[in-house]
């Protein structure tokens, strides 16, 4: 529990302290000001440095993409198996496409006859 005179003592010491603060000489105040400016400059430096890792990662990624991925190249023609070619080029297949209605009728006729 604080006593009234303790508070009064603290108040008086505070008055003395404040007077000593107000009486700081000009050279000391100048040094303090310079110290503050140096400290604030580190904030600027830090805020710039904050982007350095991100910029570095972006640049490294860009370089990696340019190095790893090749430029535009000619598309290789893959050898196609002869079976596929025969199907594509066979005349029967094309004829079948032309008679789709006929094959559809055969299919319906088979279903109605119970042929699966």
């Amino acid at each position, binding site marked *: 529990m604080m006593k009234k005179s303790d508070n009064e*003592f603290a108040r008086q*010491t505070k008055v003395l302290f404040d007077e000593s603060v107000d009486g700081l000489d000009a050279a000391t105040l100048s040094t303090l000001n310079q110290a503050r400016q140096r400290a604030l400059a580190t904030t600027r430096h830090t805020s710039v440095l904050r982007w350095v890792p991100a910029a570095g990662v972006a640049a490294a990624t860009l370089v990696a993409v340019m190095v790893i991925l090749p430029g535009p190249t000619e598309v290789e023609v893959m050898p196609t198996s002869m079976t596929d070619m025969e199907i594509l080029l066979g005349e029967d297949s094309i004829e079948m496409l032309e008679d789709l209605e006929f094959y559809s009728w055969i299919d319906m006729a088979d279903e109605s006859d119970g042929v699966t």
Partner: protein
Amino acid sequence: MHVESASFAVSWANEPSTGTRALRQEQQLNRFLADVERRALRIAEISVRDRDDALDLVQDAMIKLCRSYGERPSDEWTPLFYRILQNGVRDWHRRQAVRNRIMVWFGRGRSDEDDYDVVAGAPDPIGRSPDEELTNNEAMDSLERAVADLPARQREAFMLRTFEGLDVAGTALAMGCSEGSVKTHYSRAIHTLRKKLEEHGPDGAGDEDDEEI
């Protein structure tokens, strides 16, 4: 849903740019440090009894605050700043203790106060009469010596509470201890100082009319 989206869009549009925010933060830090730096210097000076070392400690504390805690809410800056400063003061005392031990080995032990020039450390006059200035300087010097002689934690609690005007919670944060510890350290400091300074202290604060409040 649309209302939320719209309000988000508005708040996003009103959000200051990174550059503007950084500038505003730097201005706030500048104001804070300009306000606190002189008291911090005197507090550090009373703790280490050397103005140059105190200036170094205050500058280190400023730099660390700006670098590590500048983005914290500004109402946290005062206790954080003093926590950094008090850590610096403790490290300074540790280094001094080691240095003194080494110097004792070479037969050149010294106390912290051997080369502390009270006159050089005294503040310039601020419009007071010479008698008044002398009296106050003597009183302040007695107070400084008494505060410097306190145990470290009592000294910290007393200076943060009385000189810087931090409340119990802020002092506890700055000292890294509980509020109960702050009250105990502060109370002991006040009683020790009153006992030491009852004849030389400010206006000879006595025990008469003690009244619990």
